[in-house]
């Protein structure tokens, strides 16, 4: 056991910190830090800057931009990026479809898609969930029927985050309705969103934003070459995508950034003769969250070290579960700190309210999603109880 960073890792951290806080454009960071709905341009710009610096897809194979870092270095990279409020590489590209294509795609697919994916020249979105296939993803009904050199796709996906900005969608489709198990007979298909028959309908969320969408497929013709890996094997690629990654599962740096902001905010809210940061109950709550976030970060570092061997990993469920809870707790704390100033969150001119107070409640409400999307916390507990504890319900 060794607490201290090696000289090499300490230098690495300094290098990351310098890049993110000195080289990376301040205006993009400021907008990201302020929160709220961020325009796609900043996300695109950020990823291209990162990619140019070789920092967009460090966990990919080296021939496609990977850096062969240790898991600790990847933690440091993410931590420094998040605490500096640098918009991270788009998860659908960097952490989802990219690794799947890299692991299971043909050489042709890799060469065609990976560079554009790393540079966000293609903006990907995810077509997994359906109205009747959420936690029970394997019940999906969107079909792809072979017709000559093409697949013909029909059906509907939902909860497609940022789908309105996307150029392409990676989708799970049922290619063999007669397979003996519903998990079999599913394939992983790459679909150009501009293909005739693809329609996107944004869904409004309770914070007023539109970050998720329904995507409809009506006889959408997809070249057969855009099927990743083997036909009918898509379920195993999806599982790889959903659970193979321990690093970055919990957004520790973002949570720490927000908790630090919360202290800054509390110090600006007058209460009695002082500020809210002088309130014993509030400062104790902050201290408690700092303890819990510290325990989460240490756990992220500790379990990241183990190997996943490319399999779904129950250890990542710990990080997803606790990470989403703590993220929600910190955002709720900010609503408490905003207090009455957070009660009016519609935009208007001529206000003395600071913008963080206006964003506190909708951001809190928006992040109730964190314990639902990407495998609900109930599913994560199930993975832990069954996969780690051996409790087979």
């Amino acid at each position: 056991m060794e607490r201290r960073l090696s000289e090499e890792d300490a230098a690495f951290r300094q290098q990351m910190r310098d890049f993110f806080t000195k080289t990376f454009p301040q205006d993009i960071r400021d907008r990201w830090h302020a929160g709220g709905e961020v325009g796609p341009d900043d996300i695109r710009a950020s990823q291209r800057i990162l990619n140019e610096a070789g920092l967009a897809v460090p966990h990919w194979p080296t021939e496609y931009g990977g850096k062969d870092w240790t898991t600790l270095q990847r933690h440091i990279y993410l931590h420094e990026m998040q605490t500096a409020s640098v918009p991270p590489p788009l998860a659908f590209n960097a952490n989802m479809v990219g690794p799947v294509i890299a692991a299971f795609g043909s050489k042709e697919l890799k060469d065609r898609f990976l560079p554009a994916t790393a540079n966000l020249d293609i903006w990907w979105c995810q077509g997994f969930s359906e109205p009747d296939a959420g936690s029970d993803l394997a019940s999906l009904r969107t079909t792809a029927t072979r017709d000559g050199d093409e697949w013909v796709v029909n059906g509907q996906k939902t909860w497609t985050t940022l789908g309105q900005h996307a150029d392409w969608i990676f989708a799970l489709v049922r290619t063999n309705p007669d397979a003996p198990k519903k998990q079999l007979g599913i394939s992983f298909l790459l679909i150009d969103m501009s293909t005739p028959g693809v329609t996107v309908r944004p869904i409004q969320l309770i914070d007023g934003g539109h970050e998720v969408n329904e995507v409809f497929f009506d006889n959408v013709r997809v070249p057969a070459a855009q099927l990743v890996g083997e036909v009918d094997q898509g379920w195993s690629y999806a599982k790889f995508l959903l659970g193979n990654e321990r690093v970055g599962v919990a957004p520790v740096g973002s949570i720490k950034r927000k908790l630090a902001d919360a202290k800054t905010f509390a110090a600006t809210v007058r209460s009695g003769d002082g500020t809210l940061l002088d309130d014993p109950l509030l400062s104790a709550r902050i201290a408690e969250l700092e303890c819990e976030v510290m325990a989460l970060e240490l756990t992220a570092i500790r379990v990241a070290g183990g190997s996943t061997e490319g399999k779904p990993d129950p250890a990542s469920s710990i990080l997803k579960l606790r990470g989403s809870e703590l993220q929600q707790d910190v955002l709720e704390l900010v609503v408490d700190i905003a207090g009455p100033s957070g009660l009016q969150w519609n935009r208007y001119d001529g206000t003395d309210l600071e913008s963080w107070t206006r964003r506190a409640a909708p951001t809190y409400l928006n992040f109730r999603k964190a314990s639902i999307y990407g495998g609900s916390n109930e599913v994560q507990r199930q993975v832990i109880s069954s996969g780690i504890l051996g409790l087979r319900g």
Partner: protein
Amino acid sequence: MDFTMTDEQKALRSAARELAARHAPERGEGDVPVGPHDHDPKTWTAMAEMGALGLPFAEDVGGFGASPVEVSIVAAELGSAGVQTAYADALVAASLLVSSGSQSGLVEAVTDGSALVLPALTEPQRAWSQTFSSMTASQVGDKWVLSGTKEPVLCVGSATHLVVPAQTNDGLAVFLVETPVVSGARVALVETPATLLLDPSRTPAALAGAVNLGIVTLAGEALGAMDAALSMTVEYLKTRKQFGVPLMKFQTLTQRAADMYVSLELARSTVLFAAMQLADHPDDAAIASRTKVVVGRTGRHIGQEAIQLHGGIGMTAEYSVGHLTARLTAIERTFGDPRQHLAILAGSVRDHAMVDVLS
């Protein structure tokens, strides 16, 4: 002690339910308003017509001689249907007008809906306080003028008058401001003429009683919202299928629904009792704080679990449950949040051995 509604109270509940159903926001595909509400004159007129706006005030001052109990019954129906109004705020203002004893005409206009008088209590970047105002009041000749900023004041764009606590040389007093100039939810006064409603000697008790009335009104609304959120969640668990079976086959979900129910029933008892208690003792700050604590915690519990048990659909503006949770989130932080009220109560735990509810 008796928690059973009288026939009159049941009739009032039916009327309020019918009103709320008629004015409930529409949901469905496409965008809808989210978050803090604007003033809806149609709903407000209907509330005035059914007598809701004057319920807790004596008949001889222009009210309808009922009590906070009746107010909480009406508020619960609004909350259950997701109808957001300035009801609690308007009652706070009206209570101060009534306390002043000098505004019977305006009270009448308030209760018939022709005037909308709102209190301006909160200040930018300041924690809730009902004993502090940075608004200053000074006398120019025999006229008062106010200077300072209050924000946010919800629905203020539709207000005909504001009731504003302001600091005088002799302490906090309460003033009436007519047709204020506002931007958005901000009230920035500069030497604005105002009428003295309550002098410093009468202000603390009057403000406490007014805010207590606001607290129990919002608690009633929260009760309705929680009722609706739990009902929708239970219905969803019964009908929605995952893995080929209804969600209610998953014990971890049904046990959590049971916990929501238990929380709700404890909150219900608290709100009903608080309304009865404030009917007799309008300035009982302890019961108001306890209600804020219980209802705040319960609203958080039920609101969060209602979304979680719904899953993704609970996040959408097309579905009511998220709106209810948003409203509960706002109510929890209005007139002080549970942490603040807990701190107030913590300061007085020495004053009694036990909390006595029977007297």
